[in-house]
């Protein structure tokens, strides 16, 4: 009946899956990680590597007053209170714990300064030194290799198998799977002696499925995700009795570049420099239209509301915060100009209103208050007047699925008909829904993946072994 068995089967090799695997392995159990793609790491490895933590060492160093309560409040604000508060609270409370785990257990290296991302009341975001999630995924994979956790690539899980009592007992897989061909590979059944952990990510690249949840997300809208971010694992979990929650809550990223595919290098330019230290301009009018430091949903809604084409502008001072600048310039994602006139001409923006907008914005900074849109004015925010000037052309791209399957505080998957946990079945990461509500606060995803990944790993390891 079974071809092989492990104590724990983890589906997915991103932040959540690897965190879960490492926690379970730490308890001496046999663990296998199944990944359908040809490389490990999934979307996590191409993310921006931003980690939010309340009450972190850098906050202490920079004398930032923060607390899990404040982080939770920010998450609920961004999520328009659609969040399941008991789950969001766990993320906020365990955020620093998760951050320290990556530093102490995995040796992840972060930049020495905090970032103040849009939607956060205070600076609380760490960023990996390479400005990428690969800065965390690589140490995780190294650790997995050291502690003998096999990462099986090109293994597609096609079915969850429950025992007679309805508890999860194993999976049916296609080995040597060729994404996205569902017929490819060799069938095999792997048994989980203790539990199955589903950490298969979101479905931002699944154009059919996301349009089913939100018909406005038509096929021509790009995604920041890698091409494997599809919905088959979610559908499989639903077939196994999991409860779907908030599947239509799909976030678009406002910071991606029009001049490159996916998340690219432009997204981090906007996040680190364009929005916090620059201005967002409607190309038709040459004026600002939103507080650049709003959370993602507000920004996207503002950018889409009038169908406008927008750019972000920073000067020589602001661009110092953009760690991906060289790559952006090289790929033509960000363009450099000696004068605002040249910048306006190249972007076909009306010059006079643009100059006026910049002048007004600069005076807000000097007065310490944005009278127009209420952008917070931190001490290191400078007026836009030092050449050269830089611009990036923006377009919204599908970025994150807040919805997914319902889990409880122990990361157990909840059965739809009984509203009780499905035995020996856990989920974590983007596939688990409800934590971020209507819009995920930037840099809260990695934190959440690690927090709930570890919870799932620990609790799965605590299951009694099957005979």
């Amino acid at each position: 009946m079974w071809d092989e068995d492990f104590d724990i089967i983890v589906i997915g090799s991103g932040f959540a899956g690897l965190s879960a695997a490492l926690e379970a392995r730490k308890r001496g159990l046999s663990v296998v990680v199944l990944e359908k793609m040809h490389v490990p790491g999934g979307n996590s490895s191409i993310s921006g590597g931003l980690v939010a933590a309340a009450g972190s060492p850098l906050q202490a160093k920079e004398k930032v007053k923060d607390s899990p309560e404040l982080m939770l409040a920010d998450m609920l604000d961004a999520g328009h209170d659609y969040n399941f508060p008991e789950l969001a609270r766990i993320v906020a409370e365990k955020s620093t714990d998760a951050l320290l785990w990556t530093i102490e257990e995995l040796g992840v290296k972060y930049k020495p300064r905090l970032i103040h991302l849009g939607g956060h009341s205070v600076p609380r975001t760490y960023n990996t030194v390479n400005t990428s999630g690969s800065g965390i995924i690589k140490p995780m994979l190294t650790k997995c290799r050291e502690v003998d956790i096999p990462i099986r690539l090109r293994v597609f899980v096609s079915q969850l198998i429950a025992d007679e009592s309805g508890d999860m007992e194993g999976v049916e897989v296609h080995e040597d799977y060729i994404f996205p061909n569902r017929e490819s590979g060799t069938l095999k059944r792997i048994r989980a002696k203790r539990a199955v952990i589903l950490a298969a990510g979101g479905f931002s690249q699944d154009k059919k499925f996301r349009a089913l949840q939100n018909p406005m997300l038509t096929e021509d809208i790009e995604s920041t995700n890698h091409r494997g971010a599809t919905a088959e694992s979610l559908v499989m979990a639903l077939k196994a009795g999991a409860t779907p929650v908030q599947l239509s809550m799909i976030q678009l990223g406002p910071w991606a570049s029009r001049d490159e595919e996916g998340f690219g290098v432009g997204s981090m330019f906007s996040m680190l420099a364009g929005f916090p230290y620059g201005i967002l301009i409607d190309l038709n009018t040459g004026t600002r239209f939103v507080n650049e430091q709003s959370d993602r949903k507000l920004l996207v809604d503002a950018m889409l509301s009038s169908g406008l084409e927008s750019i972000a502008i920073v000067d020589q001072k602001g661009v110092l915060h953009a760690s991906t600048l060289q790559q952006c310039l090289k790929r033509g994602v960000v363009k450099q100009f000696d004068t605002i006139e040249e910048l306006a001409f190249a972007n076909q923006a009306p010059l006079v209103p643009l100059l006026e907008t910049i002048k007004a914005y600069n005076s807000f900074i000097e007065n310490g208050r944005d009278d127009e849109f209420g952008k917070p004015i931190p001490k290191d925010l400078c007026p836009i007047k030092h050449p050269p000037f830089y611009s990036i052309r923006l377009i919204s791209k599908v970025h994150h699925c807040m919805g997914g399957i319902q889990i409880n505080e122990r990361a157990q998957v909840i059965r739809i008909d009984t509203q009780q946990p499905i035995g020996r079945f856990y989920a974590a990461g983007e596939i688990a829904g409800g934590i971020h509500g209507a819009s995920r606060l930037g840099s809260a995803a990695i934190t959440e993946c690690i927090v709930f990944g570890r919870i799932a790993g620990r609790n799965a390891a605590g299951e009694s072994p099957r005979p």
Partner: protein
Amino acid sequence: MRINKQLNTSTQSTSEKILSAIFMSVGEGILLVDEEFEIVKANQRACEIYGLLEQNLIGADIRSLMDASGSQVLEKYFGGLIEGQRMSAEIDCLYVDGKTFPATVTVTRSDFDGKRYWPMIVRDNTDQKTLEKQLRQEKQQTEEMNLTLKTVMKSIEQDRKDFESRVASKIKTSLLPSLKKIDKAPDAGVRKSYLALLEEQLFSLSAGFENQLDAGLLKLTRTEIEVCRLIQAGCSSKDICDAMRLSFETIQTHRKNIRKKLALNGKKLNLHAYLMNRVL
């Protein structure tokens, strides 16, 4: 929420599409590296080899995917190659989890748009190296086996030589002198005692043989040996009478004498069983 249409930039011609499809599906890793050692293009096999998504490979410094000596080799190639020239080397590359693996990289140079580029073909040699290692191990095992056999043969040869020289020296030092003494012995009594000595020496010579000479058997007469052979062959006394044309009583007498000479008298052991494993 209204969503504006994306600017569609899919203006690729069919030939470009075909070229790109071939590039992506080739079974060897292909990377295009620019003057700053940055990877600007990578195919799917290259992603697999390094365990990195295309998004992570592109923009990465090629030197971050290999060990220090590999980087040196590459820097040398990049500095030295003229357009169209091709060089390859075996170097150690790094997988995403930090594990090193042997690879063959072939580097060429190709200039376009006023810039220099280095197309690289990367072949993961892990499987090949494993096979080579297995082959080397097997070869070594065979060689070791050969050596052992040779040693065994040598020691057998040595044993044989030792034995020969022992027999030769025994003949020279004991047997021949005894014969001479018999020849020169003045009377039958002395001769008899020398003969007994010679007999003793011959027995001792056979010590350690697989079929040691049995002193008892040597005492048997020719007729007694004949009787023994027939017993050994499983004949009854009656059969032996017929075969040797002797009376039953004579055979019984022979049997009695044989038992006496073999010192089997009074023992609960029949003659057939005793003779079974003995050479006559």
